[in-house]
């Protein structure tokens, strides 16, 4: 299974971490970012989220982030997974795993990767509130 995926179904954090860990016995620190659907956004009660992507380009961009993270940070491996489709409150949205010899490198790469994902990956979020559906139009 690929370390970079856009998919409808949920992922298992443990399984993905094990897949990353399997890449090397020299990993000493793994940092995971897990984005989840929260009940309130900008003061508005959220009922449900829906994500849409430009699939081919989104996977291309996630692959690009992984390659640059491995090249520019002192990490051994990285996984990036983003879900699309309807997502209920509390559910998982996005998972980024950075594995390094030393923890500081893993923290830096993981933090960079999630902000880079938000910046360059063609994925859009629709929020369903009591007032209706709104495509979120914000550039982070």
């Amino acid at each position, binding site marked *: 299974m690929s370390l970079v995926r856009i998919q409808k179904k949920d992922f298992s954090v443990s399984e993905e971490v094990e897949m990353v860990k399997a890449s090397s016995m020299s990993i000493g620190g793994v940092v995971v970012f897990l*984005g989840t659907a929260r009940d309130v956004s900008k003061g508005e009660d959220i009922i449900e989220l829906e*994500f*849409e*992507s*430009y699939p*081919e*380009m*989104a996977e*291309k961009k996630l692959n690009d982030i992984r390659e640059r993270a491995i090249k520019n940070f002192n990490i051994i491996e990285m996984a990036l997974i*983003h879900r699309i489709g309807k997502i209920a409150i509390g559910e998982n*949205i*996005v998972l980024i795993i950075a594995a390094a010899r030393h923890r500081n490198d893993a923290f830096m790469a993981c933090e960079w990767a*999630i902000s880079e*994902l*938000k*910046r*360059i*990956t*063609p*994925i*859009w*979020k*629709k929020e369903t509130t009591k007032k209706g559906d709104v*495509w*979120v*139009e*914000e*550039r*982070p």
Partner: protein
Amino acid sequence: MITIKFFAMLKNKVGRDEAAISIPGQITLMEFKDILKKEFPCISGFIDKSVLISVNQEFAASGTIIKDGDEVALLPPFSGG
């Protein structure tokens, strides 16, 4: 023919997720934007303002050349993550 892809609120506004138009030879993205605004007037404000454009799944600039067979996508501000 050029394939044009619409996403998120642009898809809602245009009422479909894909369109195809033909262009006279090779033109720049800047010129292509004018054609898009005439073909899809309901989103011309977005095209001027907040929309990024990709050509064959790579971000494109005003000078990028558009030619027959290309896939052009109109990308509203991203909100993944």
